[in-house]
Structures are given as C-alpha cells and as structure tokens.
C-alpha cells in the first residue's frame, strides 16, 4: 500500500496536475463566491472540460473546485448577507451581524480556518474508513432515511426565531412549495395549474437566490442613499483570533466535522443539510443559545466545519458503491466512469493509486484553501467596497444568470423573482426564511421515504420502527422534537 501511495503522490505532484488543481481552485472560489452560482453548478460546468484530461487531473479538478466553492459561499454571506451557495445560508445571519459589529475579518477567518479543519477531518475519515463506512451506510433503507429527514426537519424548531407559529408557517410554506410538480412517488402532477414548467417542480437554487439575493437588492432599492456602508474598515488580520477560538470551542469543531461527514455520507444529503443540522445542534447544546443570530462565533465554527466535511463524506458511498452522497458526487461519479475509474471495490483493487491520488488531492485542496482563501477574502473586501448603488444591480444580473444557468430555464428566473418578492414581505413581517428553505430541501425526502416505507410495510406503522437502526433513530427524533415542548411546559408549571 505504501508504494501505491508514493505512486499517487508522484502523480499528484506532477506539474500539469498541480496546475489543474490551482486553476480549479481559483474557478471554484470564484463560482462559490458569486451569489447565485452554487458548488454543484461549478462542478456541472466543469464536466465538459474534464473530457480532455486524464483521470487524475479530472478528478482533482472536481474535488478542488467543490471544496473551494463550499467555503467561498461564505464570503458574500458575511459581507453582503447574500450567501454564495445554499450551504452558507444556514449561518448567514450570524456572519453578517459579526461584520456589522465591525468584525468582518473574524467572521471570514472563522469561515476559512474552520472550513479547512472540517475538510481535513472529512478527508481523514474518507481515507481511513471508506469501505467500512460505506458498508454500514448500505443498511440504511427508506425507513431510516425517513427518520433522518424528520430529524433534520426538527432542526427547524431550533433555528426558528421569535414567534414559533411564524416559524412553523415558514416551514409549511417550504414543504408546500416542495410538493409542486410531478416528482412525487405517485407521479401525479400536483399544484401545477396546467403548466409544463411547474411539472418539473420548483428548483431549490432559484428559490435561494431569490430569497437571499433578490430580496437584498429590493431592500437596497428602498433604502436611503449612503446607508449600509459596513465594510468601511480595512479587513485586518484574518487569522488573528483563530487560535483562541480553537481553544475556546474544540468540541464544536469536532462535533460539526463529525456530523457533517456523517450527513455527507448519507446519500442524498449534502453540505447544505449538514450546515443546517450543525447550526441547529450548536444552538441546542450551546451554553449561550440566546447569542445565536447576533454575531456569535460558535454556530459559525460548527456549521462552517460541517459543510466542508460533508463534501468529503459524500465521496464515501460514491467511491465504494457508485451511490452519490450528494448532488456534487452524483456528477463526479459520471466523470469517474468516463475515466474508467469505475466506482466499486475494484477501484481499490485495480487502480489504488488513482484512489489514493484522490485522497491526496482532498488534503492538498484543503491546505491550499488557506492561502487562496485568504487572497480571495482580501480581493472581495476591495470589490465590496464599491458603492452599493453600482454593486446591487450587478448582483441582480448575476442572480438572474445563476437562476437561469442551473436548468437553462427562463422559467426559473420567474421563480427567483417571485420568491425574492415573497421573502421581502416575509422579512417585513418577521417570518423567518430559514425554515422555508429547510422545508423545501427536506420535503421531498420525507414524503418519498414515508410513502415508500408504507409501501414496503404494507401500510403498517410498526414497519417504521421494527428495524434496529430505524427504531433508534425514531427514539432520537422523538426526543429531539418533544424535549423542548416538555421542557417548556415544565418551566411554565414551575413557580416564577
């Protein structure tokens, strides 16, 4: 095995491959940082270019670009309150507020450093235990996925804000929007009003772009000139307080990375879900939950590590079984096949150097994220010092492009507009956006897995808990959902 690793190292350190890695890193950073363009899109657009490359650089390009994009999405979220990718949407409020408090370099530094830590953690897990973990993951069937997605939904309870009923309203909005289209187990068009475009359902990216980017543009249009000039201060030392924070929140880093990797491993759930879940978990177990949403580093650290570790975790089922761990690996698997690196155990037997090269690239990508990310942050700060009056219309056009490019669909631009205006009104009325996004992401998973579980158990609810993993998950989910309700009732019955 050692000589396979050495061969792999030689392959990766070849100048052409290193060049590809640096170019893909720059590309991933750019696409991730532009609001409206997501990490998945970055990888999808890379596919035609990988045609002309041999196996190692092709895979290296995808791994590097996706890791960078997930981190880079944090930058506009912090500086403009517009997340660059869905994975950054979970904690955009905290990072933005930290900027408003005059500490943008702290928020950005957290994003960078802890993303790297999470990514390295995920890569280590990938390298050490891919086949064994993948094997265990295969025990998860529809029933298990149902409970996991329900657990994810309960995270909405923790992310919620002031009024619980408004939080639930938002969640229901997301769930209802998720039902539009033909992509339900019954293959029956729902809420499509006869439109062919709506039959495809409402895509996540146009909704996120609309809700975060377009609504920000709208808010700018009605604000008096000269306000919202936050990035006046020079961005100081990005790495300054990171060591102190590492010592202050070690468990959060570990917990975030572990949960992120685990979520990444599960097929169908990726970096965005990892970020939401970790943020919720962080708030739930924090000693200072009331500080979340005001510019508190704890949630940022945990969720920032989480989404980057999910990117590596997703490769575990992909490499071992050809089952994608998230939308990025779904595309990557196609590229693997193209380069005759067919996923499966034979990939470890026939061409171990290629697999080890992939692992090495992961480590390399996470390491070069430090200098390249630092450079990007400095550049972004300069760009975002540009007058908002010039910046916002450009962001509008980028939002249009981002919404269009995901499916090459003009209809998606209308979707973006609609949800942007809706989000504007939601925020005017203190209806939180986060639960809606969570509902949109998780709704299809919950329904499909519930319906399929019922089909498999013949309609019996016992089928939902009679498998060991399912039963355990059910217990955990039940506890997570009921605990705050029980605690709330008990505190009310206690004397003041």
């Amino acid at each position, binding site marked *: 095995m050692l000589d396979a690793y050495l061969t792999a190292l030689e392959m990766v350190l070849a100048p052409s491959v290193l060049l590809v890695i640096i170019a893909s890193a720059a590309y991933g950073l750019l696409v991730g940082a532009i609001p409206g363009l997501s990490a998945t899109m970055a990888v999808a657009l890379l596919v035609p270019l990988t045609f002309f490359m041999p196996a190692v650089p092709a895979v290296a390009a995808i791994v590097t670009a996706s890791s960078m994009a997930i981190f880079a999405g944090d930058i506009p979220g912090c500086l403009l309150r517009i997340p660059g990718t869905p994975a950054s949407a979970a904690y955009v409020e905290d990072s933005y507020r930290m900027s408003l408090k005059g500490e943008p370099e702290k928020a950005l530094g957290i994003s960078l450093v802890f993303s790297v830590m999470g990514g390295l953690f995920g890569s280590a897990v990938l390298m050490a235990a891919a086949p064994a973990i993948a094997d265990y993951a295969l025990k998860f069937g529809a*029933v298990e996925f149902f409970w996991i997605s329900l657990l994810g939904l309960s995270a909405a309870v923790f992310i919620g804000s002031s009024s619980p009923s408004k939080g639930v309203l938002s969640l229901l909005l997301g769930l209802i929007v998720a039902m539009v*289209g033909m992509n339900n187990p019954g293959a029956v068009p729902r809420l499509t009003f006869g439109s*062919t475009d709506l039959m495809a359902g409402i895509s996540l990216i146009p909704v996120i772009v609309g809700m975060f980017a377009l609504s920000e543009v709208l808010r700018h249009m009605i604000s008096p000139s000269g306000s919202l000039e936050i990035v006046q201060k020079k961005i100081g030392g990005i790495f300054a307080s990171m060591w102190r924070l590492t010592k202050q929140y070690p468990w959060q880093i570990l917990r975030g990375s572990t949960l992120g990797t685990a979520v990444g491993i599960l*097929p169908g759930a990726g970096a965005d879900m990892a970020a939401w879940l970790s943020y919720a978990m962080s708030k739930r177990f924090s000693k200072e939950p009331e500080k979340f949403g005001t510019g508190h580093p704890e949630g940022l650290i945990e969720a920032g590590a989480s989404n980057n570790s999910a990117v590596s975790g997703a490769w575990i089922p992909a490499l071992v079984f050809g089952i*994608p761990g998230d939308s990025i690996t*779904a595309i990557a698997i196609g590229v693997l096949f193209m380069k005759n690196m067919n996923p499966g155990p034979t990939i470890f037997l026939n061409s171990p150097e290629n697999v080890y090269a992939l692992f090495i690239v992961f480590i390399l990508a996470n390491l070069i994220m430090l200098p390249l990310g630092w450079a990007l942050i400095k550049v972004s700060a300069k760009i975002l010092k540009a007058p908002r009056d010039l910046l916002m219309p450009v962001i509008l056009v980028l939002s249009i492009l981002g919404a269009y490019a995901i499916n*090459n*669909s003009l209809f998606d631009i209308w979707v973006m507009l609609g949800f942007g205006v809706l989000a504007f009104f939601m925020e005017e009325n203190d209806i939180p956006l986060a639960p809606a996004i969570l509902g949109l992401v998780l709704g299809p998973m919950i329904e499909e897995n519930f319906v399929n579980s019922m*089909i498999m158990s013949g309609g019996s609810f016992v089928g939902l808990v009679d498998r060991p993993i399912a039963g355990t998950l059910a217990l955990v989910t039940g506890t997570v959902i009921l605990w705050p309700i029980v605690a709330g009732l008990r505190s009310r019955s206690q004397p003041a």
Partner: protein
Amino acid sequence: MLKRMTLAAVALAASVLAVQAKYPERPITLIVPWAAGGGTDAVARLIAGGLEQELGTPVNVVNRVGAGGVIAHAEIAKAAPDGYTIGLATTELSTYYWGATGDITWKNFTPIALVNFDPSAIHVNATSQWKAAKEVVEAIRAGQPGTYKMSGVPIGGAAHLAFGGLLHSIGIDPNKVTLVPTQGAAPGFQQLAAGGVHIVASSLPEGASMVEAGKVRALATIGKERTAAFPNVPTANEALGANYSAGAWRGIVAPPKLPADVRERLTSSLKKVYESENFTKTMKGRGFGLVWAAGDDFATYLDKDFTQTGDVMKAIGIRQRD
C-alpha cells in the same frame, strides 16, 4: 414557361447546394433531458464531442431537466428546424402520450438515428435465496400479489415497464409485484442492499458497482442478446424462455420538418461518430448497448416502441389514454 421552370430549378438547386455547403456555420445545441453526470448525459456528451469534430463547429450540451424528460422533449420539438437545435431523445418519449404527461410522441420529431439501447435486467440482493431468474419468476407466479417489491425507477420508468412487460409476456400479472418508486437507480440499489425490496430492474451498467461489491446479483438481462461487458448474465430468453426485450433507448432527433440536406448531413456525421473508435470503446467499456438505426428505420423502431409501451402500460394499469 420552360425557361421559367428551368430558372426555378436552377435557383432551387443553388439554394439547396448553398445550404448544404453552409451547414453548419454556427454552434449547435444538443438538448438532453437528464442531469449532468448520469448515463444519458454521458452518452450525449460523447456524441457531442464526436459531432463537433465531424461538423467542425461547437456542439453544446444543454441539460433541460424536469418532469421525467417531457420538458426537454417539448423544447426540442418546438425549436426551429434549421439543424442548430437537436436533442437526445430517450425511452420516456414513448410514455408521455399514454401517461397523459404531455401530448408529444415520436411523430413530433424528425428522427435522425438510434444510437444506444440498454436492456433492463433482473437484480436481486446477493444474500437472497434466488439464484436464477426462473426462481424469481416462479416465486412471483406462486405468491400473493404484493409479496414482492421492486424499486429503482419511478412509475412508468423504463425498468418498470420492462419488468412488467416481461412478466406479462409469460402470463404473470405485472401488478403482482409492488413498485416502490424512486427517482433513480442508485436509491433503488440502496433499498435492495438494505433489504427493503427484492428486485431492481435497472440496467446492468447501473448495477455494475454494486454487483462487483458483492451486494447485489444480476440474474438476467431483458435483451435480445447477452451484453458483452457482462458475459455471464443470461438473457431472459435463455433463462425463462421469454422472447421479450425491453429497456431504455437513446437516439438523436431534431425538430419536425427538418430540410432533407441538413438531415442527411447530420445522419452521415452521426454515423461516423457511432462507428468511431472513441465512441465504441467508451460505450462498450461502460457496458452500454450499441445499436444503430437511421432515418426511416429509426422511425419504424419508434413506432413499434410506442405501441409496445402503450400495451405494457395498459397491462400495468397506468395507461391514461387510448
């Protein structure tokens, strides 16, 4: 009169020649109904790459995902018939009319050529007591409806229809096997390995990784002959005596009323791509079935497929129209 006719004929010939000489003079768009990274996308990009070299102009692949492919097919049919927008049509085209998903059939296109056919297959869990396709089928025949479940395909998907059609052809009611619908093959194989379902009818290439990992067993392929990349898997005919073949086909189509010379140019270029070493090697390497049928042969194939699909959908009970 004669002079005028001659002039007209000359003008016509000149314009035809002119068009022929000029096409293609700008990039071509190839619309694909499925997402980047999947099998259909892979085939499309192989073709696009080859066509680009043959025609000397960029061929851009555009993934128009949604509604089981009907959005992309509709867009291809609506495009201008100038040869600059073509598409990769897939099996689902034969289901749209019957399933009332859309009013579109193969007749809404100019068929250029069929390039690929992947037969569906019978996969079971590696620890299952079924070691041969015959045992599976007999168990279904003898068992109660709903005892056995299959997955890996949405309602009306190619594998669903193929397996149902196979059962129907040997006298078993296809509805005896309950479908647990999933959007793609991978979740289906996950369910199979986890023990939630008994059968996955997706094609051999789609199950290859899981078979190699020893989690899943491929018992038969529902094709006319064995697939070269999987020589040990018998055909349904060999294993069951069922002379039935069904699965997923892919072919290049263009909007209706395409000028004859553009069609000619596309077809001949496509044939060269199909026969090229790069195409055949890559397709065979992945276990994708190579099948060629151009022009009218393709139209006949599509017509037969349309009718067969309608019959199978009726047998399964999901046909909405006559």
